[in-house]
């Protein structure tokens, strides 16, 4: 058993991903870091319940999302920023990286429900299997699949709405630059 890695030592390697997951849930970088801090303290107190050899990141994400749903979702309603200035931001972006298409994407993403953002991050960005995502969220695999499909569809709809508003920014050449792929 001495070769089993110590999850307490490994924790730090998962902090960047925990922060990214937290930002996508809270849509606010400073609440996100508070959320990560709370989740880390909770995880630390519960490491005896972690089964060595299982997916530590999924375990940490479970704690993080449970913390979010039990504490932060309520709190956020109370401190909702009236101008919606934060709503469109997944994170603070440096000015020079202000591709409008990515801004559109961030804004569309921020309009999704908590469950939709969560499932897209887990499955689409983090690469969790449907089974891992189901376990992390405490729901059935079928629920994760249908949530993922609905979330992708909704995101596509929201981005198309933006396209119509800002046609000049969505021409092929711009999309090609943004996507890093040659124009078709």
């Amino acid at each position: 058993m001495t070769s089993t890695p110590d999850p307490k030592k490994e924790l730090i390697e998962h902090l960047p991903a925990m922060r990214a997951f937290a930002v996508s849930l809270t849509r606010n970088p400073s609440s996100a870091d508070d959320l990560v801090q709370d989740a880390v303290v909770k995880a630390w107190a519960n490491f005896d319940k972690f089964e060595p050899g299982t997916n530590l990141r999924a375990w940490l994400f479970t704690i993080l999302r449970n913390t979010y749903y039990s504490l932060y979702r309520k709190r956020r309603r109370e401190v909702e920023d009236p101008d919606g200035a934060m709503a469109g931001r997944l994170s603070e972006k440096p000015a020079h990286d202000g591709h409008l298409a990515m801004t559109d994407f961030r804004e569309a993403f921020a309009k999704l429900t908590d469950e939709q953002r969560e499932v897209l991050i887990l499955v689409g960005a983090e690469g969790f299997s449907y089974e891992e995502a189901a376990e992390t969220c405490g729901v059935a695999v079928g629920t994760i699949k249908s949530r993922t499909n609905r979330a992708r569809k909704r995101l596509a709809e929201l981005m198309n709405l933006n396209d119509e508003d800002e046609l000049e920014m969505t021409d092929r050449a711009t999309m090609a630059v943004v996507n890093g792929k040659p124009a078709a």
Partner: protein
Amino acid sequence: MDHEIDENLRRVYSDVVAAPLPERFTELLDKLREQEREGCENPVEDKQ
């Protein structure tokens, strides 16, 4: 479209993952370790 969405997701996500870790987290881990050491002044005998 799904592929494009996932690509955008990964891009937005990896921007945050790549950001430097604020000091508060390394400080937090140091504090937790220290608390643990203090709590271990009367350690339970290590099995084995």
